[in-house]
């Protein structure tokens, strides 16, 4: 009370903007007053602020239209109220929205553009936009399907923008313009019938149609709209605050949308990829609770859209996200927990990639369990059980994600699970999806705990699926191995390393190792000697086995020896083989060692790829860790290329700035020569970086070609063998392998797009078995 109170200054413009933004964003949140009175109040405040802050208000409203689609109808109502009070403002808002829509389309922000289109269409319900002009816009959208020589994904987007607005505005548009709407819907139907759907199998989470078909997203939406039409456009789920203001709004003058010409297709246009709608629940799964809307009901579409939007808005704030999901309106009319779990798994399993980092979904589900401890864990357990039951037809990439999620989730709940419920998998062949899944889960659980813990948490009958104790296998360890070639050198090395020998000392010890490939000996004596590699790598890794840090130190300390021994391609391959031999019980260790060896350039990416496809690894070929290593390797290669490209761009920018400075300072040309000297280093740098970029890009392309080549060889072998012996092609191994090939395409599709011509002409030619070619064709169809 003794503190002098700082006199509040008249607010700065930015403070006003913040306040306005806050007011607008908060409307619709939990409040003591009704939504209607809050909207009315806010409309009054904004109307009063229009003379001074119109452009700020316009900007904020356009932004919420674009970024808060889950609150669409709240904001369309607000705009409706403002338009009723100020016709000019309504007109300016519509114009601003159209400008924003054009901008979004120009910069490939298609997902946000859909929200803008939906917002505009709901403005028809608020008497801001005249229905006939909205229909006219949709006519222009649908006519995109008549364009020639454009990618199908372009037409798809315009179709989606039209159809996905109909739950909100279908009724109003049909009432005003039924003939035009019928024509549009019939054009829609014929487009959907003729569009190709080669891409669908590649994007489906399950290959089976039972119990829920995995539908292509436009097909599903079309079914939903057809049903909506059959129900005479009666839609009861969407909250429509504008209904309460009907008497005010219907007095308002409406605006006509200006004629909207969809911007033409350009080379730089990148349209959203097609999707498959993920469904795992229906009304039979929650018999006690409210009925889940059917898969072809428009309610299902709206709920899913809104829940996805909430996650998109709040992905960084897991507690807020969970709270917002759980406070989605309609809680007692829909089985919200089921919808939430389904939507989260839809994202987690989405192909090619989840919208957000995988670990986010694990933590989000944990937050949801915390907020609804009496109900959500049960739904999650039910979902897990269902996913387990359908493993036989689940896409391998999705199984990977299921394994990662489930093991990480369990590690937060003391690994408590009713494993006996899954005893059915114990009688199956270990390569079948269910036992394979349990094995991989237990292995991952072990990585997050320790071996004995895993033995303790599963019933004794599950021991056949338990992971191996992750101990190192040292072939020279036992006295009984003393007859092995290299044994004595190994002993020697062990002592030397323990006595802190240098690289040179190691080299001289290794000189005594005979070369089993005597013909490969050249004068230098450093030719590929597999025995040298074996003895050195086995011994070193054994000595450093205590922890990752110990092993990394060892790699660093004896980097020179490694580089020399692994100089040739065969050397690199052999190093990898020995690492595997030593650590085959500890896949996690193999992965971190391979990562380190790539980063310190002991081996290169191509060597890792060749090693993965080598016959020595055939036994582990379908194990999860192998593919984690391969994808990690590809990612390192991609990041490396990006890094050098970025360096090149930055250096070019520096040169450009330097030129600009020179040009602006220079009045006469006397200083030409000295400026050249300044440019010299930069220009040389750019030349060198250019070479580096080209070399890296070439290495990157080569890596993918090697991988594809090896896949083709492996799959062709299998197909030929099956054909000649008359056995069915679709073994568990084959399913896994072909889906791993798909995974390469999907996970790295942006890079691979650059190689389409080479792939088509060199590898995926017409002579290829149609099973393999289909994968390539499905991939091509994704952006066609």
């Amino acid at each position, binding site marked *: 009370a003794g503190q002098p109170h700082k006199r509040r200054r008249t607010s700065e413009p930015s403070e006003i903007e913040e306040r306005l933004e806050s007011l607008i964003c908060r409307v619709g949140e939990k409040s003591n007053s009704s939504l209607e009175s809050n909207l009315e109040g806010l409309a009054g405040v904004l109307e009063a602020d229009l003379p001074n802050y119109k452009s700020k208000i316009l900007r904020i409203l356009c932004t919420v239209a674009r970024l*808060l689609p889950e609150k669409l109808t709240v904001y369309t109502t607000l705009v409706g109220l403002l338009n009723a009070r100020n016709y000019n403002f309504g007109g300016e808002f519509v114009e601003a929205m159209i400008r924003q829509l054009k*901008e979004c389309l120009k910069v490939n922000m298609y997902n946000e553009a859909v929200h803008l289109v939906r917002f505009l269409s709901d403005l028809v319900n608020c008497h801001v936009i005249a229905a006939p002009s909205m229909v006219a816009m949709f006519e222009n959208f649908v006519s995109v399907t008549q364009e020639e020589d454009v990618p199908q994904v372009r037409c798809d987007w315009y179709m989606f923008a039209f159809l996905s607005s109909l739950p909100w505005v279908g009724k109003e548009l049909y009432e005003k313009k039924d003939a035009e709407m019928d024509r549009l819907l019939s054009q829609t139907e014929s487009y959907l019938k003729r569009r190709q759907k080669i891409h669908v199998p590649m994007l489906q989470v399950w290959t089976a149609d039972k119990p829920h078909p995995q539908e292509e997203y436009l097909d599903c939406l079309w079914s939903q709209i057809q049903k909506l039409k059959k129900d005479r456009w009666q839609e009861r789920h969407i909250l429509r605050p504008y209904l309460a203001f009907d008497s005010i709004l219907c007095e308002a003058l409406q605006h006509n949308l200006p004629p909207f010409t969809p911007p033409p297709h350009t080379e730089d246009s990148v349209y959203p990829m097609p999707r498959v709608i993920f469904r795992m629940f229906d009304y039979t799964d929650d018999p006690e609770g409210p009925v889940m809307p059917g898969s072809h009901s428009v309610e299902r579409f709206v709920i899913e859209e809104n829940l996805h939007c909430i996650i998109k808005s709040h992905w960084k704030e897991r507690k807020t996200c969970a709270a917002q999901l759980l406070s989605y309106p309609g809680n007692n009319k829909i089985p919200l927990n089921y919808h939430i779990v389904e939507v989260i798994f839809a994202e987690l399993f989405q192909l090619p990639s989840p919208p957000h980092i995988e670990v986010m979904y694990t933590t989000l589900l944990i937050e949801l369990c915390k907020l609804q401890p009496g109900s959500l864990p049960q739904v999650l357990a039910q979902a897990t059980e269902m996913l387990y039951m359908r493993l036989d037809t689940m896409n391998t990439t999705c199984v990977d994600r299921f394994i990662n999620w489930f093991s990480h989730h369990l590690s*937060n709940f003391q690994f408590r699970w009713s494993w006996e419920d899954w005893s059915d998998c114990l009688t199956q062949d270990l390569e079948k999806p269910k036992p394979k899944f349990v094995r991989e889960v237990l292995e991952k659980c072990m990585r997050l705990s320790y071996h004995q813990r895993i033995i303790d948490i599963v019933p004794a009958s599950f021991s056949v699926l338990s992971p191996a104790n992750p101990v190192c296998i040292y072939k020279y360890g036992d006295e009984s191995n003393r007859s092995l070639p290299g044994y004595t050198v190994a002993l020697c090395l062990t002592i030397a390393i323990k006595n802190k020998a240098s690289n040179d000392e190691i080299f001289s010890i290794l000189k005594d190792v005979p070369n089993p490939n005597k013909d490969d000996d050249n004068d230098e004596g450093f030719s590929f000697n597999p025995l040298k590699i074996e003895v050195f790598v086995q011994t070193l890794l054994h000595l450093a086995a205590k922890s990752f840090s110990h092993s990394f130190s060892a790699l660093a300390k004896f980097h020179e020896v490694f580089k020399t021994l692994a100089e040739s391609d065969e050397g690199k391959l052999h190093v990898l083989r020995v690492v595997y031999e030593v650590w085959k019980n500890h896949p996690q260790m193999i992965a971190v060692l391979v990562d380190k060896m790539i980063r310190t350039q002991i081996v290169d990416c191509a060597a890792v790829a060749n090693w993965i496809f080598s016959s020595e690894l055939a036994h582990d070929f379908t194990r999860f860790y192998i593919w984690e290593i391969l994808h990690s390797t590809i990612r390192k290669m991609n990041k490396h290329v990006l890094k050098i490209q970025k360096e090149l761009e930055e250096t070019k920018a520096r040169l450009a700035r330097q030129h600009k400075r020179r040009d602006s300072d220079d009045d006469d040309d006397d200083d030409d020569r000295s400026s050249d000297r300044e440019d010299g280093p930069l220009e040389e740098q750019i030349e060198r970086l250019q070479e580096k970029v080209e070399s890296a890009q070439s290495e990157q392309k080569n890596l993918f070609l090697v991988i594809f080549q090896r896949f083709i060889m492996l799959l062709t072998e299998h197909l030929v063998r099956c054909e000649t012996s008359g056995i069915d092609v679709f073994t568990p191994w084959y399913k896994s392998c072909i889906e791993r090939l798909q995974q390469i395409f999907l996970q790295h599709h942006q890079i691979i797009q650059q190689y389409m011509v080479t792939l088509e002409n060199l590898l995926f030619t017409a002579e290829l078995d149609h099973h393999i070619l289909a994968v390539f064709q499905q991939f091509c169809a994704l952006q066609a």
Partner: protein
Amino acid sequence: GAAGGGAAMCTSGTLSVLRSDSYVDLSQYRDQHFRGTRYDQERLLRKSCTLYVGNLSFYTTEEQIHELFGKSGDIKKVIMGLDKVKKTACGFCFVEYYARGDAENAMRYINGTRLDDRIIRTDWDAGFKEGRQYGRGRSGGQVRDEYRQDYDAGRGGYGKTVQCQ
């Protein structure tokens, strides 16, 4: 406000409600042993790729830490916290990522979840320096284990002061 309706409809603009990233914000903690100004320290914290991880069990291994924190991105290095006297694990570590974004995701999604059945806590670190891997408590472990009164089986039982009673 500006004249006319010429406000740029910037498609990259956002809303402060969507900018919120509280898990990534700096905590109140500042390492008192940091050499440099508060300003320097905060500048380093804001671009750091290194996290301090606390409330680990003494038995949690580098491998477990690597597995968990690897879920938000590629790890450059894990440095285990050690008792200054015994040179054994004393319940904390540093995790360094190659990319800041990966460290941010760890703060968003791994902080406050369980490792080895314990809720672990992550915080930004200004960067590892030799010597910082050791506990600063008088007995050699972490300060918090000097004075705590509760029994924690994963952290040597009772606090050191209690043990000496």
